[in-house]
């Protein structure tokens, strides 16, 4: 009753308050740290795009001290982009690109639905280098087009961090860190695409090899696979499918997408058999990293008014090949968002089924315990130069023997002029046992909070011609020795 009333109250607030920072159909993004940091880095580069040059250096001091720098230089069709992070060790990614046709250095190919490389959802592309700590193919990539034909080719050789079990690979981390061992990774790919107005078809061959075997005998150190895709376009509808073959039954991903007036819908189906995820492929299913699964997803977004939209979606995941009859597990989300010149507001609710495999003799254990996540974000301009902001999350997760829950609450007061921005406020994480990932304005784009904490925050940003300087201080109120400082200096020109 009380929770229901709370939800009603929160929902009713949207009538007066007001934004949405995410355009994804499924309201609450489930926060995969590496995806967030790569997306955050990509956003940085997109900000630099209109300029012929940009440099940025950020220093962070706190539980760990590190420096991060990014550069972007554009000269006619040539583009250099890269980032470096200096901590206990040095890690970075640098790319030289000619148009969208050639990339040298760290690159990220995007192909079809993401069963081989990153997802493209349109023509094959070469994406920006990822976050400096993320592993990426290193070598040469080509994306050449001639009339209706296109070719995507990539070769990469990189020494990659690895965690060993004996002499075999037990885990291939996706981010660079302090690991004791490494392995040589070689990969190559060649694909051809034929594109017409109404349809695209393409096929790609992919090879990947490591100089060590995997501890998991189901994974091969040498992987050869093929991928083929088709995309049909008609009016406001697009249907696409990708089929990946690794010797056994094919992995299949399909998607139908439609834009019709104020309604945007997506329906997808994926069926993954025995599938070894290639080193830089997107996650094949939203709800599971395991193979032998199938997944159905349906999403829609509807603009009720110019400033008001509602979005919802559900994803159903099912284990295949089991003698028992495994249940379909679901993630369902709904989000309402409002934005105008004065206000922004977004409220998202996510319900998650999580299977608990528990054999308890006499007591009843629910195999689908309640797991909800509520996220609220709002801001309102209260004066010409002043605005207030609120960000809050509440996660409630029942487990077999305990309830795992946590909340995050942050309130800020912001002063902004054309050249000056000043922000102050505080954030509180209330949790006894819940680790919560919170979107943050730092190098990684997120912060992991693991225990109850209260911190006061002060941020000041100043812009002068090409230069932009931002200083930020965060002080934990429960422990005066815990202070986090950051300073960012950036310049854009041309």
């Amino acid at each position: 009753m009380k929770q229901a009333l709370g939800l009603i109250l929160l929902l009713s607030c949207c009538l007066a308050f007001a934004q949405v920072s995410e355009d994804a159909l499924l309201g609450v993004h489930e926060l995969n740290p590496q995806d967030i940091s790569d997306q955050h880095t990509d956003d940085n580069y997109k900000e630099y795009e209109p300029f012929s040059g940009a440099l940025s250096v950020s220093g962070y001091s706190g539980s760990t001290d590190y420096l991060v720098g990014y550069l972007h230089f554009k000269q006619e069709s040539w583009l250099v982009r890269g980032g470096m992070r200096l901590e206990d060790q040095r890690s970075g990614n640098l790319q030289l690109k000619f148009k969208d046709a050639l990339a040298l250095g760290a690159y990220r190919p995007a192909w079809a639905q993401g069963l081989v490389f990153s997802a493209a959802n349109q023509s094959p592309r070469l994406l920006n280098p990822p976050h400096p700590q993320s592993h990426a193919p290193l070598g040469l990539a080509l994306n050449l087009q001639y009339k209706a034909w296109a070719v995507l080719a990539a070769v990469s050789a990189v020494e990659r961090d690895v965690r060993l079990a004996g002499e075999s690979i037990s885990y291939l981390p996706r981010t660079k860190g302090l690991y004791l061992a490494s392995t040589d990774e070689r990969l190559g790919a060649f694909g051809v695409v034929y594109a017409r107005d109404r349809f695209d078809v393409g096929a790609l061959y992919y090879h990947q090899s490591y100089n060590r075997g995997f501890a998991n005998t189901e994974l091969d150190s040498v992987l050869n696979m093929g991928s083929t895709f088709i995309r049909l376009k008609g009016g406001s509808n697009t249907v696409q499918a990708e089929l990946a073959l690794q010797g056994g039954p094919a992995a299949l991903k399909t998607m139908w997408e439609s834009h019709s007036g104020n309604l945007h819908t997506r329906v997808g189906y994926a069926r993954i058999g025995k599938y070894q995820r290639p080193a830089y492929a997107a996650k094949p299913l939203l709800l599971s990293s395991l193979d032998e699964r199938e997944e159905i997803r349906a999403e829609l977004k509807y603009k009720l008014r110019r400033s008001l939209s509602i979005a919802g979606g559900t994803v159903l995941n099912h284990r295949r090949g089991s003698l028992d009859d495994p249940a379909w597990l679901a993630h369902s989300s709904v989000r309402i968002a409002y934005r105008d010149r004065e206000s922004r507001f977004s409220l998202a609710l996510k319900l998650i089924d999580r299977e608990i495999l528990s054999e308890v003799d006499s007591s009843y254990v629910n195999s689908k315990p309640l797991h909800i996540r509520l996220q609220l974000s709002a801001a309102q301009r209260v004066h010409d130069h002043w605005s207030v902001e609120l960000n809050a999350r509440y996660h409630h997760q029942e487990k077999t023997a305990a309830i795992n829950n946590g909340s995050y609450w942050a309130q800020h007061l912001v002063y902004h002029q054309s050249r000056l921005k000043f922000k102050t406020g505080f954030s509180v994480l209330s949790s006894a046992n819940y680790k919560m990932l919170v979107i943050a304005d730092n190098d990684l784009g997120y912060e992991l909070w693991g225990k109850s904490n209260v911190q006061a925050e002060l941020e000041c940003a100043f812009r002068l011609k090409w230069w932009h300087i931002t200083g930020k201080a965060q002080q934990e109120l429960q422990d005066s020795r815990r202070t986090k400082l950051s300073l960012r200096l950036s310049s854009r020109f041309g």
Partner: protein
Amino acid sequence: MIPKANWLSINVKYLAILLLLTCIPLTASVGEYSAMANALSGITLLSDSVADYAISPVMAQKGLSTFYNRPFNSSELTILGLHNAVGRKNIFVGVGTTYLHHEDYVKHEPYLNLNYRFHGLGIGATGHMMYDSVKGEDGEFDFAYDLGAAYIRGDYGLELKLLRGDSADEQLAFGMKAALSPEVTTALGYVKEKNHDDYFRFGIAAELHEYVSLYGSWQNEPNRFGMGVQLNLDSWSVMYSVRTHTALDPTHAISLDIYW
């Protein structure tokens, strides 16, 4: 084996903490922490502080308020609050949080309020989330709601509030106010609590000067007096207040309010 002297001092310390923590709900089951609430014994009909959205769902005020409260003059307990409210036409939305900190105990209470005011008639509702934790463990969440209605006509008004509904702290409060002169407004209230004795309260607000206002209050069960002084400067104010207790030291509070 703990030496007897140490054992006694540890117990005295924990008893003192326990007494302080238990006194907070005993003296006022719904926390009245802002300087204004402290001076007025929680009579929100006389309050213009946005922080009092925490104890009234029908404030219909816009602005920002932050306060520091030192309950019973204890150096070991700190209560901080940050509250703000915005409005569009006749609709007001208030958000805020109160944070109580002790070395061994933490309580955090954020809320969201929506209220509507039309021709003096106001209705509102607030959802509260309450979290408390002892020594960083045993953290528990609970939820409660406030409902309220008010009618304000010039210097006169009535207010009916149900605070922390469905919780152990549930409180039903009725209040009315009337102006004795253009500078002096008084209010009378009756409070019925689920787990405590009912009590009356009386409050007065006097505008001494363009920049200075005085506030005072009294309540029975237990007998407590509150008093505060507010400095008003354009669109912001600073207020200090003190509130007595029959058995414990007085509670001090200071607030900074900005109105928009």
